[in-house]
């Protein structure tokens, strides 16, 4: 029988708050709650505003490594490498997706500013990587074409 108080805490703060309240989070694990506003942004501008990024300048030090053409939009490998010193965050957007913000990667002191993942793309679109370094935001954009697969393979 679930305790009424606990149920309220769970609804209010989400599962992490409940864990923290119950002392279940190991010490030192200060975790940001899932940034709902950013992930529900309908445009790149909205999502950028939600993470406090405004209008980032483009930079050659932010590199998007991905094939120009994805044979299928369901799985598109993307690597983002930032050579900007003091990078603390890498944020990945897919401009024409219904869910524009794909992911936010926290780059702590123990990892390189170099992440690889796979996104899904609804159609040919710009993919943008925004990097936060020393409180400033820098960006890079790459168009990835999505082809329609055939019946084979």
């Amino acid at each position, binding site marked *: 029988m679930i305790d009424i108080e606990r149920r309220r805490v769970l609804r209010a703060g989400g599962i992490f708050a409940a864990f923290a309240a119950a002392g279940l989070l190991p010490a030192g694990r200060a975790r940001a709650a899932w940034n709902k506003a950013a992930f529900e942004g309908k445009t790149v501008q909205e999502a950028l505003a939600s993470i406090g990024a405004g209008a980032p300048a483009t930079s050659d030090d932010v590199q998007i490594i991905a094939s120009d053409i994805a044979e299928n939009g369901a799985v598109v490998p993307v690597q983002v490498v930032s050579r900007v010193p003091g990078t603390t965050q890498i944020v990945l957007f897919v401009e024409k997706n219904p869910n524009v913000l794909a992911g936010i990667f926290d780059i702590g002191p*123990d990892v390189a500013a170099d992440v*690889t993942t796979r996104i899904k793309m609804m159609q040919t679109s710009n993919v943008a990587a925004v990097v936060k370094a020393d409180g400033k935001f820098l960006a890079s954009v790459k168009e990835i074409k999505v082809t329609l697969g055939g019946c084979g393979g």
Partner: protein
Amino acid sequence: MANPMRIRAAAKDGITEVRILMNHEMETGQRRDSAGAIVPAWFIQEVTARLNDKDVMSAQWGPSIAKNPYFAFKIKGGKAGDTVSVTWVDNRGESRTDNAKVT
């Protein structure tokens, strides 16, 4: 219990390269099933990783990350025999943690 991830961690020249394959639908909440009903959104929202109990990496994801997500990053440090531990939590509150030894 959610399905296991596949984690590979290899140390070379002071960097531990971690490559993970997660087993998850990453449903966007946009798709309709054969009866026309919306398939509810179901996706990993948070990923965290530790090297021997020390937090090294965290990420927030949305449903634009592909199904059966692949995630690779590089830890500064680490050596063969260390343990890399990865946890994901999804929007339903389900979670999965798997470990791997660094080779």
